[in-house]
């Protein structure tokens, strides 16, 4: 058995209002797929995906949570020990942006101190003009780019607008997070059995040995 590039495990949690597209972003990232009618996440879902950034290989352990308000009290169970978080809102739903603001606060107060957070405004395809141009459809967008940027700047977050449907910017989110995760914070990694490059679906990955990075922060 060979021991190639050690993979860094990063525990990542997705938070945000119901139906903003959290599960869809994960599905796009993990399986490069999209489903028009995705069932709501009940409680939480867990998936993993490896991703190579330059020299490093990062193994994301993704905790995709349920978005409905009342599931929020379950969230602490999932973001505990998380090193990274993606807070998602729907750029056509102003209420989802308020929720996002709330989640950022909750993370800053309750999660690990040095957690890396990315703010993601999803469903960019909905505001895009049909004819491929750079322009935007009138009146569909309800949360401006500036609002997102401002919140990100205030709270020190990464910021992206994405579309899980067209896959626009989706990988960039994960790469951005990977770059920001300090190398030192994730040294506690063990060699991986599986040396496949790129994307590995969890279901084909059943043999991989556990190498959870139990960061004590």
């Amino acid at each position: 058995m060979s021991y190639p590039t050690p993979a860094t495990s990063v525990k990542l949690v997705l938070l945000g209002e119901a139906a903003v597209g959290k599960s869809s972003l994960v599905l796009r990232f993990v399986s490069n797929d999209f489903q028009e009618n995705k069932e709501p996440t009940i409680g939480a879902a867990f998936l993993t995906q490896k991703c190579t950034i330059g020299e490093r290989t990062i193994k994301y352990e993704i905790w995709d949570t349920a978005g409905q308000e009342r599931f929020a009290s379950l969230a602490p169970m999932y973001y505990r020990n998380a090193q990274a978080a993606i807070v998602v809102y729907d750029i056509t739903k102003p209420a989802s942006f308020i929720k996002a603001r709330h989640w950022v606060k909750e993370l800053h107060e309750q999660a690990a101190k040095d957690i890396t957070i990315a703010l993601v405004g999803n469903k960019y395809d909905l505001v895009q003009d049909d004819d491929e141009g750079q322009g935007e459809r009138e009146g569909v967008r309800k949360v401006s780019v500036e609002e997102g940027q401002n919140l990100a700047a205030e709270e020190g977050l990464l910021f992206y607008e994405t579309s899980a449907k067209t896959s626009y910017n989706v990988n960039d989110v994960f790469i951005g997070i990977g770059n920001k995760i300090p190398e030192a914070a994730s040294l506690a990694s063990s060699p991986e059995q599986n040396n496949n490059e790129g994307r590995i679906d969890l279901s084909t990955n059943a043999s991989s040995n556990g190498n959870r990075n139990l960061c004590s922060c």
Partner: protein
Amino acid sequence: MAFFDALREKAVTTLNQVLDKNRNSGLTKHQQFCYSHHIPETETILSESAAEIGIKSDYSTDAYNDNLPFPQGRIYLTQSFLIFRDAFDRKNCSFSVHLSTIKKVERPPGSDYGFALMVSTYSKLHLTLYLVGIRSDSERFAQQLKIALKKNLVHVGKLQPFIQTCYSEYLLAKNKVSTEKVEHAPQGGLGLVFKFPGDPKESRDKTKMKLWFDLFRVDGRNLSLVRTPLFYKLVRVGLPNRLRGEIWELCCGSMYLRLDYQGEYNKILEDHKDQKSFAIEEIEKDLNRSLPEYAAYQSSQGIERLRRVLTAYSWKNPDVGYCQAMNIVVAAMLIYMSEEQAFWCLNVLCDRIVPGYYSKTMYGTLLDQKVFESLVQKTMPMLWEHITKNDIQLSVVSLPWFLSLYLSSMPLVFAFRILDVFFLQGPKTLFQVALAVLKLNGEALLNTEDDGTFISIIKQYFLTLHESAHPNSPNPKFRSITRFQELLVTAFREFSVIDEEMINNTRAKHRDTIYQNISSFVKRTELRNLPRTTNISQETLSLLYDRFYSVVESLSVTKGSGTSVMDYKVFVEFMSEICDWITDVNVDDERHFLRRLFNHWDTEKQGALTFTDLLVGLNSLVDPDLMTSMSNFFELYDTKGDGKIDREGILQISEDLLYITSPWKDGVLFDGITKANIENVIADEVYKKQVESGNTSPDQSEIQLPSDFQVDRDKLEQQQVERYLQAAATFIQRAFEYAQPEEEELLIKELAIDNSISHNAALNPNTPVYLNLPTFRMVVLADETYELLFGSTLREATHLERPLDTKFDPIRNLRDMFDGLLADGRKVATKVRLRMDSRAANGGGGAPPNSSNASIKSGAKREEEEEDQDDDDLGVISIDDNDKDLLLATEAQVVVKESTEKPRISRMESEKIIGKSDQNLIEFET
């Protein structure tokens, strides 16, 4: 009178319920009885007796043959049911026969038994009840049954339309073993139109149907069905598609609700037609996300049914509203059930079977996860140790099983089989299956060290449930056993020890922790979303939050309902706990000061305060700024919002001020003035002693506080009482003196010059007058006591930061304060020092300062500033620059007289003039 009777009855029942509550299950005995027989909670036991039962059906060929012993047990009569429970385990024979189905009750002739009754139903079932016991008791039971049947007659009309909705009736009528006319197949589920999931051949649907058909002939059907061992067996082997919905509702008892409340489902929808709600918004988001692979949910017919059922439920039970996972559960029900069936079934599911699963806090879900974990620990200690050692989050896997009743975890055909048992046996089914899943995958799971692999093993397992459990076995019979069958056997055999009692006990053990976790999360969230309250610190917020919920919860009739608003009665209790100035409140007094506060703070005008309302209100109540504090108070009475308070309002203010100040007026509490007086008295005394002993140098360390010194408490108390009475009298007099007549604005100049003001129209009770804010302030400021009331007295007697558990006794506190006064000698020492300084400055000849003329600067800074005070203690001049300019500008108009009373008047007048431009803080004394 009837109203009070009803009220008393309600109180008694509530009390009984509390006393009667089983600590473990949280259910009353009455509830337990209803739940275990699946009947509505409105039923109560009217009569009961030991009995043996004989069952015979006109349609059965061999029925219960005579060799079989009659089942023995207990028979109960309630308003709508005749209930029998087998003495041993109920599985042998039990029934809840609805009285509406009973056609005839007779005494069988020539019975050897002491007392027998033969009950015949419309479905041609003959139940012979052999009552065991004293004959008179049996007679009474028979009599009660007769009365109950008579009373029930008004409901019998509901039976016919109901029969038309039961597939069992249709089945029997079609096969001519029924006297009922059921010509059309009842509406039923979407499966009738869009095909039922799974292969009916493979599930031997036809055979199952035949078995049920036979059972119905012998043991009755729907509302008059007798449960025998065969009944349980037929449920466990899986229900036939067309009967599934009906058996589900029969097993869980939602059928009885549907019978009783015919038409209510449609009425709810009609009543709320075109209405919007938050729950509806959430439902809309998920309509296309509910079993999207099933054909019906790609069509508007399926989506519409789903929308209607979820919406109707959200109106019916707004406390639950809509929770994700309900969409999946209802979508699944609707495959086998009509909308109405699904609606009532959902009701029973949420209220009874899995309470708290879908509630706003989801405490039921969280609790059962904890229960599940501890059952794993108990039954599979090795696996549990492995899970904890590797920090595997078990609930990520198991939570969806419970919440969506396995419907989102395994292929639907299998999930429905589990649901069959679930509706029959209750929530323990969910635990038994969950434990079996872990057990059957135990070996593989013990080899994993991370959540990912753990989850994928189980995912994989669910996807292969149809495969052989023993693919390599040489025995073909063994080979044909599927993994799913193995799962059921493991769940219901091996884990049959997991019964309701064990689950209830485990729940009781973890309930508190779960509540604590939830409430601390909810608290964090709520506190974070509050409006800014500048006068209340973060720690105080947290205390107020706890007090709010503790009071709301302890006083609400429906405990644990998750109410988050406070009604007036609760509000009074809350305020009494933190305000020393609140004394016995009559909650029926609509004109009480607290009622006024409550109404004013009730922003939504809903007769209840949210935590935010309360907080905003309290924040203004304790505003440290004198002027703001007065205008806040003024606003309470300015009900029209035009800045004017009429005669009636003025009288009310005076009355309320009398109420608010009563602890001081009655000498129960001391205000700042009295406290200063006490300090002065002591300081004088100390000073005298110092002079006598010849030590007059103002040396820091030398001042000794007397330990044996006695203050004339009664005298000081009396002074204060008089001062408050005086203040009240002065207030009302001045308020009317300076109130403006409605029609003509008095000329300011005129007023200022003519101090007698005898021609003031306001003094005539027939002239409509009003008090505006500047005048109100002026009148208050004219009196030191009331000025101090708004500046500090009231605020200091309002203890937002009081810890939750201390019951406060204002009387005791007063004594403590009084006695403790000497101990806090710092202020006294300062005063003594001031006197010495003064003596030194005056060359030792000066008289001791007049200690009775104390004046206290109101406001937050009082204490610090006191140290800088002039030793003559006569007064304070504190004018902020803004005000100074204004004051100087108007100075010319102010007539200042020399007398001791006049300066206050002049101050009032200047306030009146300046007040027009609503300027603040003027304190002016000569």
